[in-house]
């Protein structure tokens, strides 16, 4: 079997598998971004005063949790070649719903469940428009981004609700006893495990990659393309709503304009983590590293006294460099492989 694939002129996609296992694991975009994260961590710990302290770590983790949560379903959505721009607005809408329900005397769990249900419904609406009407996800979610944000702002106006039960606002900021790790990281870890299993170890997850490579081919291979895409949009909406609950409790404030612009940060982090916007490639460990890289950079720079605006420049430049480098590497590889592999499918 192995000798056959080695001798036969294998398609370009499988050429990677001819390389030794250790090279396949080490020389990946994901490993590059993880190494970069490690380097930045080491450099920041050595050079930035007070960076390598438990308190900094706690705040860093609290800050990136919203991004981390939303990045999980966004990774899968983007691997299928879709995109969900409405997540930032869904965070705001969820925040407003939680705020209004708590104000009306409901408990946090009830309010939270309603918010998550609304998030799932919003995702369902996105998914159905994309699949049933065959509309591009970019256009649909630009619309729903304005719509969900508009509903949030319409419901609450410019006021803010700040009366949340103290035990809940304390809980989301609390650490796991004896560690600098916030309790909310447990929630993230559980979700990460669930999404990792779903994406990397189930037929559903293989289907996600297949859809990103080619929707037609996936369909002919028995993948329920439309159902998969709808499920992913529903997950994206629901997790965004969950992140909205966290965001609200963490800052103790429900506002219609909470998390404005978050969608772009999430997408930047996901692309930085090695997910292709064309779909078909990417992995969760890379995305988590991408989110953390942005979080660590901004935290370290802020401690070093660099204004927070420079972080925008760095995020932008990192994003452009990460996609350009992938493209350049692909071009170089295609150049080197040209004598061996002939034209078809040589698009890297």
């Amino acid at each position, binding site marked *: 079997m192995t000798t056959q694939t080695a001798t036969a002129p294998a398609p370009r996609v499988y050429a990677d598998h001819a390389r030794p296992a250790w090279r396949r694991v080490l020389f990946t975009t994901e490993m590059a971004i993880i190494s970069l994260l490690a380097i930045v961590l080491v450099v920041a710990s050595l050079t930035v005063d007070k960076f390598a302290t438990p308190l900094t770590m706690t705040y860093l983790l609290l800050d990136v949790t919203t991004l981390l949560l939303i990045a999980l379903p966004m990774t899968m959505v983007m691997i299928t070649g879709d995109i969900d721009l409405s997540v930032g607005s869904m965070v705001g809408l969820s925040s407003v719903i939680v705020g209004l329900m708590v104000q009306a005397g409901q408990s946090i769990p009830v309010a939270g469940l309603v918010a998550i249900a609304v998030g799932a419904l919003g995702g369902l609406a996105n998914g159905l428009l994309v699949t049933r009407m065959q509309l591009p996800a970019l256009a649909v979610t630009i619309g729903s*981004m304005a719509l969900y944000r508009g509903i949030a702002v319409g419901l609450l106006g410019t006021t803010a609700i700040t009366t949340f039960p103290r035990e809940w606002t304390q809980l989301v900021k609390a650490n796991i006893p004896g560690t600098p790790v916030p309790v909310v990281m447990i929630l993230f870890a559980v979700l990460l495990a669930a999404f990792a299993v779903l994406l990397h170890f189930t037929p559903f997850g293989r289907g996600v990659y297949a859809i990103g490579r080619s929707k037609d081919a996936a369909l002919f291979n028995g993948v329920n393309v439309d159902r998969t895409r709808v499920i992913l949009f529903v997950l994206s909406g629901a997790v965004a709503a969950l992140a909205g609950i966290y965001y609200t409790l963490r800052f103790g404030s429900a506002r*219609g304009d909470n998390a404005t612009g978050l969608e772009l940060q999430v997408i930047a982090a996901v692309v930085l983590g090695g997910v292709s916007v064309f779909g078909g490639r990417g992995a969760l460990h890379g995305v988590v590293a991408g989110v953390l890289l942005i979080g660590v950079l901004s935290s370290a720079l802020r401690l070093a006294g660099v204004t927070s605006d420079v972080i925008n420049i760095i995020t932008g430049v990192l994003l452009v460099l990460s996609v350009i480098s992938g493209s350049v590497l692909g071009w170089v590889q295609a150049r080197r492989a040209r004598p061996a592999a002939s034209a078809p499918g040589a698009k890297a």
Partner: protein
Amino acid sequence: MSTASTATATRAVEAPARASWLRRLATSRELGIFLALALVVIATTVRNPAFVFSPDGFRDLLLTPSILVVVAVGQAVVIISRNVDLSVGSILGLSAYLTGTLFTTTELPMVVVMLAGVALGALLGLVNGALVAFGRVPAMVITLGTLYAFRGINVAWTGSNRINASDLPPEFLGLGTQAIFSIPVLTIIALVVLAAVAWYLSNTRAGREFYAIGSAPEAAELYGLASRRRVLVAFVLCGTLSGLGGVLYAARYGTVNSQAGLGYELQAIGAAVIGGVAIVGGVGTVLGAAIGAYLLLTIARALPVLGIPDFWQQALVGALIIGAIVLDRVLARRQSKRLLTERSAV
């Protein structure tokens, strides 16, 4: 999915050419949204005649969307070539600040300063275009990156500074307020830009190539079109117009801080989409995008008059965008079905 939509899209472009011009006008998307716009204006004016029939009302009606029209026209060209430019708001902000800074720190004549603002936009558009055309990476990612980068540069440069109206020469501010024959100067500039780009897109070879590239990039490449150069030109044009938008922004509002133009990218894309420019490329006109911009911002101003709290404005915009793309899809499906029956009848 993308191939299917491309097929219907190309057919949608071909079909009207065979219809009579009257039918073409009656079924055109531009007329549809123009009627929607007229409806909004009429309904609002019935409620409050001052919306149109006062000097201020009339002026604001024409003036408010002018800047967005300029930016949306550029955005439409980029979208027609199957790309997208998310960085227009950041480009607008940088150009606006450069314009203000040059007025406050140098003695350069007004025209030179304005040209410098526009040129900066062109330069930033060139950066986008070069990265997209030669990096061979999706425009969305590149311009998402430059959205951050340009805005970051703006904030780092501006800091907490701001340009105030009192720093700017009165004749420059006059551009933002004056009118010729009761039509605001900014509106005239926007209309000239619109007419020029519309002519370029529909009457020149290069203009038609944007549609060809947007409809079927591979086919355009096989046919021998200079796709890279066209994409580069689309981004430079979009950057130039965003830069012009920045100059006009400074003239109109007088105050420029580091947040100028924030969120313009989504309004510009929204205007284009509402105006019938298909996000998958190859379909639409800049006239549609311009009317879309007018509709978007006029609705925003009409809502309070109609008794709807303006907090709901954004929700309406969202519903409008979704409605517009769903409508497009339904129409395209119906047309492709009709064309199929026509073909089988022959």
